[in-house]
Structure formats: C-alpha cells, structure tokens
C-alpha cells in the first residue's frame, strides 16, 4: 500500500512535483503515467528515499518516508531508470552484494540469490560478467536486485525502456507474475504498458496530478458510450439506416470501408451486428472495439505537454 499526500518537490525554483495525491492498493500493479519530464522519476526517488521531498507526506505500508526511512528501505525494492549495475561483477556476485546491503542474514543469502535468479529468468547468465550480457538480461538483473529481499513494495522506473518488442512482452509477463505478493508501482510514458499490465493508473503532467484511479473506475467515469468499428467488403450506404435503427444505438458514422457504431454502456450490440453481417454475406474484414477513452484523456495530457 502506497499513500501520497500533498507531495511537493522543488529543485531550486523549478517545481518538479506539485501537490501530488494518490493511493495504490495492496497487491495491485499501478502505473505512473506521464510524458517525459512529468516528474515520474522524481516521485519514485522520493518514495524510495533517494531524494527528500520539499513538502508533503508519503507512506509505504504505513511507514513514513521521512520519519522511518530505514524501515521503508527494508520493505521496498527499487529499479531506477538507469539500472544500477556493477558491470565488472558476474550476475551472481552482484546479487550477493545486493543481498548483503539489503541486510539479508547470511544463512538466507544463498537462497535469496537463487530465488531471485529463478524468478527473473537469469539462470542462463548466472555466472557471466554483467558487461557481457544483453540489454534485456541487464534489465532482468535490475528486477532481480529489486526483488532479492522479497519486498512488499516494488517501485520500477521505466522497466521496459530500451528493450525490443519480444523482451518487452517478457518483462511485462514477469511483472504481472509478481502481482499479489508485491504491491507494484511502475512508471512509463507508454499507455499500452498501463492498459496491458496495470490495475490502476496515476497520470501526471508537469508534476501535477491529472487523473488517478483503477482502470475500471477511470474508463467508466470517462466513457459514456461503448462501440465497435467494422470494416466490410460490401460497405454500402444502405446499411446506415439499419445500424442507426438498432435499439440503443446512439451514433453511427462512416469510416473508410466501414462504419463506427456507438451505443450506451448499459448494452452490448456486438452479437446483433455480427449476426446481421453474417446473415447478409457482407464480407466482414475486421471488427474492433472502440479504444477506451482513457486513451483520449492521456493523449490530451501528452499533447498538452508537447505544445509548450
């Protein structure tokens, strides 16, 4: 459980984080979403005790970041934006060192190292020098060092940045598999990352909170309508009245070789539409759900950021 209240951080005159409030539920994955320079890294650095805040309050599992920082450090695993690796060590040596400074008792050290190697999928490179392993493995070593003391809370700063698509999927799966036992907060500037991995999201821009809540809450509060976009081989104008007259339909519009159909969130017209297409041999090419409106919200936030 992570709670942040009125958190503010100033670097001289520059305000990096301004009056931030949010809450992350226990055992969930929460995304910290925002364009570059939004204050994501600063927020995470404050939560992990790397930087002190100028004002406000933050507690992790009930421990205050400012009053009980040592307790916070003991229950928190942190993957910084740049993975902190001593490249002249082997993966196992490095993890042993991290186990030492995370205060894991000597008797449990080997077990902790083995477990984190196992969970992060590092068996293959266990005894190789970190400078010789690939970017994807380095990222995994970063996650392994965050996990080694079995922390209640994991804070991951851009865990998939700089990876190829296959590696991104692997890391996402890894993160999802950690859910439940760990409360996870990850930062990203990619919306897809949030919709695919996270249960909830905190969107910030210029250090200010734009929206926060679980994905369900956010989408239902933002979405008044649900709908589909269909592409057909025979997309004739005459179909418009049919779709328009379906019960519950609120809006139908023409797109390229198909239609966009929207209806109220209380109904689901997918079956009806599909049956009509099949029965009349209209040649369905594609049918996809309309994007969630959280995307629009995020785009608004991001484009606002780039206009400056």
């Amino acid at each position: 459980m992570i709670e942040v209240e009125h958190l503010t951080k100033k670097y001289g005159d520059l305000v990096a984080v301004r009056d931030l409030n949010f809450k992350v539920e226990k055992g969930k994955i929460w995304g910290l979403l925002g364009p570059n320079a939004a204050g994501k890294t600063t927020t995470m650095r404050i939560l992990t005790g790397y930087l002190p805040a100028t004002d406000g309050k933050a507690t992790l599992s009930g421990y205050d970041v400012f009053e009980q920082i040592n307790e916070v450090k003991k229950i928190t695993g942190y993957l910084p934006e740049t993975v902190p690796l001593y490249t002249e060590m082997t993966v196992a040596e490095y993890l042993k060192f991290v186990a030492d400074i995370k205060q894991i008792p000597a008797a449990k050290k080997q077990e902790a190292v083995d477990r984190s190697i196992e969970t992060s999928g590092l068996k293959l490179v266990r005894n190789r020098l970190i400078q010789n392993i690939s970017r994807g493995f380095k990222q995994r070593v970063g996650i392994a060092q965050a996990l080694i003391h079995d922390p209640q809370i994991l804070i991951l700063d851009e865990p998939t940045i700089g990876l190829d698509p296959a590696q991104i999927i692997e890391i996402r799966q890894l993160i999802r598999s950690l859910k439940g036992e760990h409360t996870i907060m990850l930062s990203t500037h990619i919306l897809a990352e949030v919709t695919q991995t996270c249960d909830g999201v905190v969107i910030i821009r210029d250090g200010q909170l734009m929206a926060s809540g679980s994905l369900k809450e956010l989408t239902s509060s933002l979405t008044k309508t649900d709908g589909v976009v269909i592409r057909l081989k025979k997309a004739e104008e005459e179909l418009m009245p049919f779709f328009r007259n379906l019960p519950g339909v609120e809006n139908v519009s023409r797109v390229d070789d198909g239609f966009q159909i929207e209806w109220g969130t209380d109904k689901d017209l997918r079956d009806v539409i599909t049956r009509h297409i099949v029965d009349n041999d209209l040649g369905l090419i594609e049918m996809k759900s309309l994007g969630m409106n959280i995307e629009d919200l995020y785009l608004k936030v991001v484009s606002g950021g780039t206009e400056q």
Partner: protein
Amino acid sequence: MNNIWAICKREIRTYFTSPIAYVAITVFLVVTGFFFYSLIQWFNLQSMQMARNPQYYQQLNINQMVYSPLFHNISIILLFLVPILTMRLFSEEKKSKTEELLYTSPISINQIILGKYFASLFVLLVMLFLNFLLSVFVFAFGNPEVLPLLDGYLGLFFMGAAFMAIGIFFSSLTENQIVAASLGFGVFLLFFVLNWASQFAGGIWQSVLNYLSFFEHFDDMTRGILDTTDIVYYLSFIFLGLFLTHSVIQSRRWR
C-alpha cells in the same frame, strides 16, 4: 559492521579485478625498488670508503642514510598514486548511477564511506607491505634498528591514510575522475610544501603553516620519532576528509 564489510569487499574486488590496483602497485614497487637499490648502493660505496677511517665508520647508520631518504621518496610517490586510487570511489558510482542502489538500501552514508575508505587502506597496506619485504635483504646483510624502521612505515601508512581520506572527499565532489585526481594532486602537493612559506610568514602564521604541513609531521617519523601530535595531526586529517565527504553526499541529496 556487516554493511561496511559488504561495501569494502566489493571495492577491494573492483580494485583487483580491474587493472587499477595491479598497475598502481607495480608502479609503486618498481619506483620504490629503484630508490631502495640506489640508496643501498650509495650506502655500500660510503661504507667502503669509510672503512679505512674507523672514526667515521662508527657514524654510518643505515636507518638514517638509507631508510630516512627512502621514506621521503616513498611519500612523494604516494602523493601521485593515492589520488589515482581514490578518484573512482564515488565519482564512478555517480557517473554510472549505481549510487541510487546504495542510497536506497538500508545502510547509512557513513557505512558506505567507511567501507570504501577501508578498501583504499587495504591497497595502501598491500603496497607498503610488499615494499617492506625489500628490507629482508637489509636484515640479512646488515643490522638496522627495527623500531625506527617500523615507525617510518607507520608514518607512511598514516600519511597515505590521510591522503586517501582527502582523495575520497574529492571523488565525492565530482563525477569526473580526472577532476577528482587533479584536485588531489594539487592539494597534497600544496600541503607537502606548506612549510616553505613559513620561512617568510611572521608570528603565529609561521607555526600554523608549519603545523599544517605534511612534511613537518612526516619528517619526525622517518627519523624514528613517534610523537602523539603527529598521530593526532593525521587522524584529524582523516576525520576531516571523511566528514567532508559525508557532508557533500548529504547536501547533494537535499539540494
């Protein structure tokens, strides 16, 4: 204590898995070995010349004629090598961002500083010990006094330890290792020759400059004089260096 050891162990490993320690130790041993050889040769020559004159022969003293100048020479080599050994200790952590791991782990800044400091002292001890082995020949073929000799090595150790502490401080100031090393050279050299200025300074400044000079305190110890003021001098330098390092790290995070 465990935390200090963990940090120290990793630093020692880095020293000895990279070429740094080997190069520094080799350079140290070759150069000091050459000094040692020359001084011994010179002493031999003197002995042979003096052999005809029993009165002078009595005054020949290997401690004064070989070791005292040797210790002075070694101190100059340390002045060059120590900044190279300390320059990466904090600069590199900062540059490669590994410091984020250290500062978000449940260990204190003091433990990090001491761990790194002890690792640098370990390298210093290795260098001095290997150099000390040369004395085996002196003991085999001559009869130097042991205590003044050990006192000289103790002096070298304390001076090296003071250099290391100040070197760590400079390393904490910057993420550029060259800058850290250059600052080290400059300051060490300045403190070495501070007593030169005391000749022209008047009144209290004369004794202040003399007291602050590395040379003044070291000279005693090369001649086998163990004075607590010298030890206190070095210990205060060590404390100052480590304390300033702590302040730098602490203030950087609060900025």
